């Protein structure tokens, strides 16, 4: 069967870092084209900040900038709602509000948005059910959609496993290792985490990611550090710290100002994780790289000094 060609815009922010393989594979299976906004730059950041409520987190401001960059470049922009994957497996409420928030902010444009809703805890809606709905909204037959989701999920898991495997190899390497504890959309954003990892590499440090671990194992191990932590991503990071803390020389808690979950979880981490140096780094829209580099430099010096290398 032939379908009208449809192009879907993927904003390169928030869930993109986590779901890009799933989304791309899913749409590809269904013969739907995608277009992605460019990596975050000054302009995206400034435009997003102008669109957002002042008090919103930097990640949302960046996200709105990416949505804006896609306006008119596609038939639909994908803005999912992901509320929870079960009890103590929630997302920050911002992931609940994004579709309606985006529609409210851009209601003056004639851009169409496409959404899906994952809400296990309150509505009993799984990711699979959400994607079935998404496929139906695109007019594809349920059977094809189901197949596409299965294939896409497999690709996503395979991709994650591969990244975990590559990180395990990095762990075996000699050298100073620092664990970056950050939400994937912070760690992988060109204006936030990338500036940190680039600097670390330049300084001869091996940056590792707390969330690049086996997710099931991480969820289990997160309980050791925080038994009632309710956020899926925070729990993966907590679990990653529990799994890797003995194999790294320092931990950087990297957060986007003012991240709700991080404000609490990172406080708890600094109170409970002892015996390894921790740097609490908060990125805001004003962060020039100079300030960040100074702090990273002194952090690395402290670690080297502790190891007797300075």
């Amino acid at each position: 069967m032939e379908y009208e060609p449809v192009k879907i815009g993927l904003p390169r922010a928030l869930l993109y870092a986590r779901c890009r393989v799933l989304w791309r594979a899913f749409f590809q299976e269904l013969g739907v084209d995608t277009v992605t906004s460019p990596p975050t730059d000054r302009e995206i950041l400034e435009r997003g900040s102008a669109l957002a409520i002042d008090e919103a987190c930097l990640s949302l401001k960046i996200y709105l900038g990416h949505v804006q960059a896609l306006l008119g470049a596609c038939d639909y922009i994908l803005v999912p709602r992901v509320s929870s994957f079960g009890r103590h497996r929630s997302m920050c409420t911002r992931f609940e509000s994004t579709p309606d928030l985006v529609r409210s902010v851009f209601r003056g444009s004639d851009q169409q948005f496409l959404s899906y809703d994952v809400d296990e805890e309150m509505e009993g809606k799984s990711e699979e059910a959400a994607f079935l709905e998404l496929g139906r909204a695109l007019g594809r037959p349920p059977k094809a959609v189901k197949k596409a989701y299965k294939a896409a999920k497999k690709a996503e898991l395979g991709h994650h496993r591969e990244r975990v495997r590559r990180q395990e190899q990095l762990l075996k390497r000699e050298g100073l290792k620092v664990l970056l504890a950050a939400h994937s959309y912070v760690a992988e954003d060109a204006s936030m985490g990338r500036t940190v990892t680039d600097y670390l590499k330049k300084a001869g440090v091996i940056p590792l990611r707390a969330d690049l671990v086996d997710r099931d194992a991480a969820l289990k191990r997160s309980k050791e550090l925080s038994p009632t932590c309710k956020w899926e991503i925070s729990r993966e990071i907590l679990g990653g710290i529990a799994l890797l803390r003995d194999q790294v020389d320092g931990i950087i808690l990297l957060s986007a100002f003012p991240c709700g979950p991080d404000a609490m979880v990172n406080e708890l981490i600094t109170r409970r994780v002892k015996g390894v140096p921790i740097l609490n780094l908060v990125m805001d829209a004003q962060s020039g790289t100079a300030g960040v580099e100074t702090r990273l430099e002194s952090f690395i010096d402290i670690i080297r000094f502790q190891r007797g290398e300075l």
Partner: protein
Amino acid sequence: MAEAKTRSVSFPRYAEYNCAFKYIVEQALGCKYVMPPPLTKRTMELGAKYSPDFVCTPFKTMLGNLIEALEAGADTLLMTHGLCRLGYYGELLEQILRDLGYQFEFINLSEYDMSKKKEYLRIVRRFNPKVNPARFLARFLEGVRMVEYLDEITALYYQNCGFDAMDGAYRRSWQDFLTAMYTAQGRADIESAYRTVRRAFSSTRLDKPQRPLRVGIVGEFYTVMDAFSNLELEQKLADMGVEVHRWMNVTNQFLRYGSGQKNLRVKIRDLCQYDMGPTSTANIWYARECAERGFDGIVHVKSAACTPEIDVMPVLQNIGADYKIPVLYLTYDAQTSDVGLMTRLEAFYDMIHMRKKVL
């Protein structure tokens, strides 16, 4: 573990609901209730000092007040679960208090799966292993009744107290009602206090114009209701001669509508498709309701860094634009001053007052 009889339970100050917490702890659970001291500047200083910087303000308020409750002799602290960051308050509050060196038992509802009925009995038994479930339930429901009366009377009070023509009689009846609630020992006390205040309210002469200024209050669940936290916003507006309406309270949010609020969402489908946060649907619905009922203004109240309420704001901005209704956005943090608030409220009042004359 402390013996059931000697357990001294506390929960932070929250609007005037502590009378119901006290009633339930004492009458239903058979423990002693330690009323935490009223919230003051000291509470906020204590809370802000030991809290992480950008946690939402109610966390700081509660931390400060829990320290004060421990100083007042509490040995068991209760913290609730919740759908936003509130659901993580418990664990972090406990950790901070323990790091400070306090000793206490901590009952954190986030540790229980509150979707399972069996868990409730486990929680009750932790307070007092000898509790008789049937008796507990009966007395608990009396406490719930107290909350309903409190919310009903509070709503009436702020709608009318600004027009009292009898030199503060309305306010005195309200304060007498609160005193009666804080000292109630049984069902009869609750019912009689309610009847008394209803009678007093209806016998107080009001000097209300035909079309008074009406302002609807929406916002975050803690700050919108707690008079200390919102710097007596409702009283201040009422004192300017405004009819103050607020839907958001425990009765409406939990007892009448429960979780999800699907039936409220129906009416705002054009504004939002999903729940955007724990109180978003009710707030958006009520703001639209105020606009449609021809209110003169809306005030949106939230604590600094309240994620769900920040996200509701773009929708409220659209309501404001569509219905040409002024919306005042107030954010409260540990430093917000009375004078600053008063200036903004006076300007807001002048504006809606002038509009009313012109329109």
